[in-house]
């Protein structure tokens, strides 16, 4: 069975042997099958090697620079910059109203038509902010996978689980029904759903099961970038852990990158290695997740860490953080003012 190749942001049809669902490692031997792509080893020759803050040689999958988004005269994102390198799992954390979801929408082209956007957005080296909807639609679901906060509302109620999961396949690839079925069933298995649920409708599933379907849908095309918009916020605590672990393991085994949005530091510490703190539409702090948990700098960060501790009963990570802000700066951490 051929694997799907989502390794190029702008490919046309189906190609063979990409790092795929069955996990052939980070940026594995990807034969893109279209002119000009050099896919030996890690990374891809024509992916832009824009400078990234960590200074590593890994390509940048998502590069946001000075993004400003205004809706109805109200600035919801102000000069936001962040980046996600290949294989990285980055968290975006902020309180309600801080602009997290706006960023997701801006990146994927889901903002309302009335929104004003400026700044630069790069996905997989391609300039995305100048793309029109058709080009963005090609990226979505193939190169970028999106997991939603409320699967009960996001899943199409008239589609069965299998139909939903196959949707990205139908939209982007030319497979026949059997192939689609096989891939769907494989995917269901990988997210931990029993095969008998393939014919079920969303309203017949529990919240956790619905989210697994959402994850399966997002990942079935082996996207290079997975954006999870508060995927566990609507779920109960026990289910949260298993969903987070599922996401992390799927992303790791596919060698993909993830941007994980949440308001809960406890979740981030499980899911990400680095995170970006956003408040009032601005990035206020970035750094390693563990680092920030131990020594939060900015007031917004401190508040979030405090809240996480309150909820997780202060066990383990970061106990003993200084509440009045006399935190020490760790390596690789930046504070942003203004």
């Amino acid at each position, binding site marked *: 069975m051929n694997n799907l190749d989502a390794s190029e942001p702008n490919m046309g049809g189906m190609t063979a042997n990409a790092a795929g669902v069955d996990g052939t490692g980070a940026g594995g031997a990807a034969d893109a099958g279209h002119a000009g792509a050099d896919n030996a080893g890690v990374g891809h020759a024509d992916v832009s090697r824009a400078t990234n803050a960590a200074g590593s040689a890994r390509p940048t999958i998502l590069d946001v620079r000075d993004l400003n988004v205004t*809706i*109805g*005269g*109200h600035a*919801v994102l102000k000069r936001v910059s962040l980046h996600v390198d290949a294989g990285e799992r980055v968290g975006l954390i902020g309180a*309600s*109203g801080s602009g997290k*979801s*706006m960023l997701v929408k801006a990146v994927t082209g889901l903002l*309302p038509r009335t929104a004003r956007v400026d700044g630069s957005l790069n996905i997989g080296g391609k300039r995305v902010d100048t793309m029109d909807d058709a080009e963005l639609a090609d990226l979505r679901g193939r190169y970028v996978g999106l997991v939603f906060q409320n699967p009960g509302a996001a899943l199409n109620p008239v589609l069965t689980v299998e139909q939903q999961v196959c949707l990205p396949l139908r939209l982007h690839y030319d497979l026949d029904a059997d192939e689609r079925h096989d891939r769907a069933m494989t995917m269901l298995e990988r997210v931990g759903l029993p095969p008998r649920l393939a014919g079920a409708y969303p309203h017949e599933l529990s919240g956790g099961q619905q989210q697994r379907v959402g994850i399966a849908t997002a990942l079935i095309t082996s996207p290079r970038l997975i954006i999870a918009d508060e995927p566990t916020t609507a779920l109960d605590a026990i289910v949260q852990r298993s969903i987070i672990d599922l996401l992390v393991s799927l992303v790791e085994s596919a060698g993909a990158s993830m941007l994980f949005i949440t308001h809960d530091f406890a979740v981030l510490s499980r899911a990400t290695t680095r995170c970006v703190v956003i408040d009032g539409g601005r990035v206020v702090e970035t750094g390693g997740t563990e680092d920030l948990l131990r020594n939060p700098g900015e007031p917004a960060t401190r508040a979030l860490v405090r809240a996480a501790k309150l909820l997780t009963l202060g066990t383990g990570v970061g106990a003993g953080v200084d509440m009045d802000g006399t935190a020490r700066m760790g390596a690789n951490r930046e504070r942003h003012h203004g």
Partner: protein
Amino acid sequence: MASSRNRRGRSQETGRPTSSGQSEAIVPSADTRLSELSGDAEHPGATRLPADVGHPANTAGSRHVGPVRHLSRGGFYGRLPLHVRQGIILRGMWGRPAGRFALIVMALWLVVSAVSLVWTPYPLLHTDGDDAWASPSAAHPLGTDGVGADVLSWLMAGSRTDLAVAVLTVLVSAAIGLALTAAMVSTRRMLASASVVVVDALIAIPTVLLALLFAVPFGTSIAVVVAACGITYGLNMARILRPTAALAARSAYVEAARASGVGPWRVFVRHIVPSTFPVLAVQLSMSAGTSILAEAGLTYLGVGVPSGVPSWGHSLTTSVRLISVYPLTVLWPGLVVTLVVTALYLLGDAIRDCADPLANPELRRVEVGRSGPADRGEEAES
């Protein structure tokens, strides 16, 4: 503010078809309504709660009367004094082009009706046989009809009749609609089920058939039009109000009231009905508009306003015979009706956008009772 307009529109719209099928409101389910209340406050315009809001002591000395309700998307809604609220609502409506148009047309309509009580260019019964089917001229700005009566005078007088029809229909349909809604959300299961059955069963009956039915024993009159329209639109209204009312009936607030022994009627009027106001406003204005269209049609068919009584339907009916004689005169009565009905529909939309505290931030942004500089006068900060 375009995107917030979309959001606003969405939160108020009703889930069921309306009387004439002319409403544009469709409600997302009750769940979405809830998420509007408790969802993320990334919606522009959400106010930041001051740190100490909500503490009971802080509302002492505020200008609010009655209970203060907190909206988790920011701000809170306390009942401002009526005149303040009305001022905010009216100003909001005037500020929009559609609202302004609607208000102007309404005002004109009222003025013309009042004026026609005492004066019209020609007395209605004045007929100038020589001058029948005349084209517009200085003497008769809109021409004359088949018996030489002045079209303009009859149109002006007709505005009275249609105003009466609209107002009466609104009253009757509101009464029937609210009564049925009360029955449908009642705690007595038999009553609730029975009323749902009645509404679902009868809702498909067209207005005109009811009018014809009533016309046989009672003859043709305004009462027949009002009765037929009132019943049809009332049934529609009940169906549309039901989701909103049911949601309110399940709220903790109402349960507490019921538990503390407040009578069912009071519970309904004081607690459930207010939550339906935005939907009600739209529906009532729809009813008003459609009743005028119905009057025109029914009068033409002979089962509406009796032929001696001036009405827009009458003017339209007489103009039918004008087609071959003076085509352009046909324009006026139809134009008047279209304008007024459009204005009524727009009025409903404007009220919905401006009078619902969830949709209109102005009604929410009130200062918490703090003494001193916070005690500004009349207006909530805008």
